């Protein structure tokens, strides 16, 4: 078991910077999710841990050793690929056994280990099949079995669920969480799916254009996004963001929004004053907005989507900004094209600097 550390790691492909000065520590036995849109450098970061790419600058540490110059096979890691990367000409047993053969594990012990890995993932009956005879979910589990069979210090997973259908994905998600707990292994997991990140990770590290945006427990990242990018990336539907100007208001501060003026809560006022920002973006999660006759921001309903247990009401403010309100389905649905008023509680307001996108106020 081991920690994984990125120390000022940069990776360039020609002039393209894939990972930019990444410093991040994955603790022993932690399940850390690298999250970001495609092309953000998360897979490159993972491949550097695996040794499939060399960092241009910086150091990668596994356990207590800098591994920059260590061969992939000597890093004591295992990787699960998005494509599963099973060897098509070998049986399931042959695939699981493959990493043991290269390490010259004796045949009897090999069989024992393969059987153990296969039964851990429910593959007992499939050992003689070829990958082409398996379903996507089964192939996925063979790839996992091949990874766990030699008990590596660190698991690397590169979007392992993205080739599964939605239902199977939810089920496998739970199985992976359980597997990690049982094996007590460090996992670095790459995904672009924020639901996977929220449900699986002990912590989430969000990358954008190779730059680390925020690291934290899923709930912390959700509740206190460090910038507009994280605010928009985590959560479905994403956080509503409305641009406005800071104005004085009875000794406090308020933000002028289209059709209304929203006073800022006391906790943020000092921070906004210190930062000296004038142009800000106000963020509110859809579930923190209410349709309330007493609300201060007027809006026009454009679409009402019913999901059964709740409703998503899309509204436009006077300046055309789209805002989504999450409404419990036991409340009365607003009529489309009707005018509503939006309300929220002060503690749910997030304030971002419009110029830099960074959160204003304590992180």
């Amino acid at each position: 078991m081991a920690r994984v550390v990125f120390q000022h790691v940069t990776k360039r492909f020609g002039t393209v910077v894939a990972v930019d000065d990444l410093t991040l520590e994955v603790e022993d036995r932690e399940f850390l999710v690298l999250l970001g849109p495609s092309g953000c450098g998360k897979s490159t970061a993972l491949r550097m841990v695996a040794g499939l790419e060399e960092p241009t600058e910086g150091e990668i540490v596994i356990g207590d050793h800098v591994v920059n110059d260590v061969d992939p096979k000597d890093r004591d890691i295992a990787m699960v690929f998005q494509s599963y990367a099973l060897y098509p000409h070998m049986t399931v047993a042959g695939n699981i056994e493959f990493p043991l053969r290269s390490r010259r594990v004796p045949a009897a012990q090999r069989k024992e280990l393969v059987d153990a890995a296969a039964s851990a993932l429910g593959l007992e009956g499939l050992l003689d099949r070829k990958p082409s005879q398996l379903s996507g979910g089964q192939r996925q589990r063979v790839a996992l079995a091949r990874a766990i069979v030699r008990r590596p210090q660190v698991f690397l997973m590169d979007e392992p669920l993205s080739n599964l259908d939605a239902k199977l994905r939810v089920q496998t998600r739970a199985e992976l969480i359980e597997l990690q707990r049982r094996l007590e292994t460090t996992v670095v997991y790459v995904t672009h799916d924020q639901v996977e990140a929220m449900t699986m990770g002990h912590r989430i590290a969000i990358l954008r254009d190779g730059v680390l945006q925020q690291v934290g427990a899923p709930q912390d990242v959700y509740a206190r996004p460090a910038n507009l990018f994280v605010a928009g990336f985590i959560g479905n539907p994403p956080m509503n963001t409305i641009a406005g100007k800071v104005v004085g208001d009875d000794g406090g501060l308020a933000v002028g929004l289209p059709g209304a003026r929203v006073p800022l809560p006391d906790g943020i006022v000092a921070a906004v004053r210190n930062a000296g920002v004038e142009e800000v973006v106000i963020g509110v999660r859809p579930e923190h907005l209410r349709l309330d006759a007493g609300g201060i921001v007027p809006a026009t309903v454009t679409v009402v989507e019913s999901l059964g247990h709740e409703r998503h009401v899309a509204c436009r403010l006077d300046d055309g900004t789209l805002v989504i309100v999450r409404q419990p389905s036991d409340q009365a649905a607003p009529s489309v094209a009707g005018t509503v008023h939006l309300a929220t509680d002060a503690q749910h307001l997030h304030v971002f600097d419009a110029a830099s996108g960074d959160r204003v106020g304590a992180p």
Partner: protein
Amino acid sequence: MSAELAGALQPGFRNFLLGVAAVVTLSAALAVAGRFVPPRPAAAFRTANRYVLLTVLALIVLFPIYITVLNSVLQPNEIIRRPPTLAIWPWEADWSGYSQAWDQGDVSSYLLNSAVVTVLIVSGQLVTSILAAYAFAFLEFPLKRTIFVVFLATMMVPFEVVFFTNLQTVATMGDWPVVGDHVGLDTYGALAIPFLATGFGAFLVRQSFLSLPRDLRDAAALDGYGHFRFLTRVAVPLSRPAIASLALFSFFSAWNQYLWPLVVSDDKRTVQVGLRQLRGVALDQINVTFAGTVLAALPLFVLLLAFQKQLVRGLTAGAVKG
């Protein structure tokens, strides 16, 4: 009148007309009964046309083979008779031509020489092609593209262009210490060495290697397999179709060589050169030459029948990636 006309016609033609009349009447009757659905006439006609064309082509291709086999079991005087006896099937086959070709004509030793040389060439081409293909597909090195293009360019150079250079080289190699006796003129080495590597083989196998997912290479690296073991355990087994095609092609071209063996071999004659010799030895026994020809072609027939699929795949290799 019609009876007279019918009587005047050849009996065969009359029967034909009667047959046509019967078919027309029958179809008309069925159509009237409403049960006859003609199989879309245009499509049926096209299919029929296609089959006729293919049959004609097949006959054209097969005719020389048929004549060769037929003549190999006829007596020499039957072969040269004019006009020829058009035997469809040689009911009184005379197989002595085969035993004569095998024993007195030395076809047995020619076949052995051909077999040895062909095995050398095929295995040499497989090894060099697979190794070169691996380098071009999986390794990074300076001038990779340029070198590959040069490799391909060798396919455009006809063998005749480098014929004398090769001849000179092989002749010189005969003076080399230790190995000289195995690589100089009139040795198996001389017959095989110029053909041990081909640009075509490297190209064919490289295309197949390139179609392997990159993840497999990465997974093997993590599983502890270096280049050589990845090549032997993963890349080669997964590229078996392309490699089989290459083996077949190189077998055919090696087996059918004529000019090079004719010049560099004397005792170690291959079968194609030997056939020519056979004709010189037994002028009055042309059936022996035919028998030798059939013997020389036999291994190719067997391979062709056994590996048709690979051959076709090899012909279209590289046309569609994957």
